[in-house]
């Protein structure tokens, strides 16, 4: 039952931002925010581009992320699969569901790290400001100081829902696997 509801909850992820990257500097006390959705970017992307061009970072645009075209379909598959698991309700399918969710989350994080590495290291050699030995890779999760900017990277509502769905799956899986094993023992 919970698996079914949680799978359906994933529909909400279409309508909510998944990830949020926030930046602060003394002259930006209100912060600058970029939101990542399943299929698009929003927030102060152009302000970030304006600032980052001084140090030679690439211009962020949706074309830069082929993932944005694929993610909505991937999510459909997940939801359908989740409903199927709920309908079958067997241990095997629960294991498979949990594994799939965890793997897709890890995959997405690795993908994001790789993008961040490239964005922060692969700089235009003609940039106006060049600080020797400095790279600007944004943090994958949490806070990091990049020159005058504090950068903060964290899941947004959609991301938390996704995390909650994974969490739910893991808890059920744990209940089924560990607690039942104990009862058998």
């Amino acid at each position, binding site marked *: 039952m919970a698996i079914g509801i949680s799978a359906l909850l994933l529909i909400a992820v279409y309508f909510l931002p998944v990830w949020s990257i926030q930046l602060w*500097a*003394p*002259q930006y006390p209100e912060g600058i925010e970029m939101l990542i959705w399943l299929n698009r970017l929003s927030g102060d992307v152009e302000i970030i581009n304006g600032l980052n061009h001084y140090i030679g970072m690439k211009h962020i645009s949706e074309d830069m992320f082929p993932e944005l075209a694929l993610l909505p379909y991937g999510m459909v598959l997940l939801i359908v699969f989740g409903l199927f698991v709920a309908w079958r309700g067997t241990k095997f399918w629960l294991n498979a569901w949990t594994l799939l969710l965890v793997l897709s989350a890890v995959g997405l994080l690795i993908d994001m790290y790789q993008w961040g590495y490239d964005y922060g290291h692969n700089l235009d050699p003609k940039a106006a*400001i060049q600080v020797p030995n400095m790279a600007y890779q944004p943090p994958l999760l949490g806070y990091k100081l990049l*020159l005058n900017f504090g950068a903060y990277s964290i*899941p947004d509502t959609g991301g938390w829902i996704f995390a*909650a769905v994974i969490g*739910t799956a893991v808890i059920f899986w744990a209940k089924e696997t560990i607690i039942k094993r104990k009862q058998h023992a």
Partner: protein
Amino acid sequence: MIALVAVMGVGLGLTGCKPKSPINGESTSAASGSAAEEVYVAPGEKDDYYLFTSGGFSGQLGVYGLPSGRMLRQIPIFSQHAENGWGYSEESKPMLMTSYGFIPWDDSHHPKLSQTEGKQDGRWLFINGNNTPRIARIDLKTFRTVEIIEIPNSSGNHSSPFPTENTEYVVAGTRFAVPMGDNRDVAINTYKENFKGMISYISVDKESGHMDVAFQILLPGFDYDLSHAGKGPSHGWSFFTTYNTEESHTMKEVNASQRDKDFLTAINWKLAEQLVAEGKFEEYGGRPYYVNRWDEATHSAVSTQKTGTKVLDASKYPGLVYFLPCPKSPHGVDVNPTGEFIVASGKLAATLPVFQFSKIQEAIANNDFDGDVNGIPILKYESVIAGEVAKPGLGPLHTEFDDKGFAYTSMFVSSEIVKWNVATREVVDRIPTYYSIGHLCVPAGDSKNPTGKYVIALNKITKDRYLPTGPELTQSAQLIDISGDKMRMLLDFPTIGEPHYAQACPASLLTENQVRIYPIEENNHPYAAKGEKETSVERKGNEVHIKMTTIRSHFAPDNIEGIKVGDKVYWHITNLEQDWDIPHGFAVQGAANSELLVMPGETATLLWEPKEAGVVSFYCSDFCSALHQEMQGYVRVSPANSNVPLTWSLNQTAE
């Protein structure tokens, strides 16, 4: 199901943990508890310092009191100012004359107080006009602009005025290289071949303060950005930060930012003086330039048009100019109080180089060169540097000094002031500024005897610091205490235009010499009426000259008839008052210029061209007395062909 809710709860909880503004911490006010007391100047009390901030794109100068930050006055310089008739009155119009005609605006950047022996002398303040290259001189006895000189063979007059140790000269440099000489109509892509830089030395007469173009030095087509003159041991030299050594002419944002090192240009102006005296200059003709001077006796400005300057080609005279390599696109260059150390700020550089004057001299003596540009030697960086301030902050721009051997450098990108020890070049303290500081100012911090109480941050952005006023927000400066080990934020205060740079001096330097009135006996204005007996209305063809007086609370005459449509009417208003703070205003309906504000003992003139017949009123626009509202008069305008005789009167009523 419960698990689902629980996990979501944790997630929401975490979202709530986002740091609010990790850079600035909880409060961006950063002012300590006693700050209010330290900047409070009780009603009736006076401030300790004068602060002069340039108005940036307003073209004017703001005058403030410190520590209160209270605005005292706006002195009009390069821009017309309807508030007191500057640039509208007949007397002041010539002040804004240039070789391009009457120019009602400029961009004023760097106020500089005159110095004698490297110390503030309280006589004049100089300020540059960026767009139509000019330098203005303000008399600090009257707080008025008394001279504006146009700089020939120049463009983008940014590295200006930066006086020498005894104000022998003020300087003007090209931030934009341009084609020089007679053929200036060349293809832009012939930049490297045809575009040149020019540094002008403008002499300042010791007594009168009168400025003149003494000589000019022709240089490669780089961008000469900012300057300071040497003092003490380095007296006789000027230093100019120099970027775009790439000599690019397009997309400079990228193309002028390619080299790791640009230059600091060192000019031996004493040698230049000698060369000029020996007649070793080239005479440049070309475009004329204007010298506009205000005469305190006639209360009027006179424009003089001049042509021809003495030019020294730097590449022809060894020893005149040297290039010192300087990290990436240097902006500010500042000389410490002893005159031995020269700090140049590479705005795109990660370190802050401190050059040493004695080492520069040594390197020159030893021919310690690293190539040349068109015969101008480049000194070896390692030979002329005392050391570098490592990792001072981001985007260093400008440095001023205190009386304890510390330097204060503004950091544009990281929006902070960094305090460091000039001897050890160690950073000892830093304080954030709100936001994006450009120049900074320590009262007398550019002289041989700096003060050590305050530093003023001159910021570019205010954002959320003040009540919002639509898209255009106030500009602002900040007062910071530097008397202790830690800098302390005391006050934010709004300013006019952009507070680009500022000068500050102890109030006592100026208060003693303030002019309170202009003695009416000494008024030599050709149309002055020194007493009501001398008032008159005179017709010369279609020109009518009205010699009128003001005193609390009437005009004399206050009834005038016989003016005709199509006349050019000159209202020459003499204020007969001889008491401090009793100006009178003059406004006439339909005047297409502004009001006049006439100081005690002064004469000022407003041109008025009536367009239709009728009776028109005029009045005093500056509240002068209990009967100010009665201070008014009438002028009758008749058709062009009418026979109404020219009459004027005061206190005459029909029988």
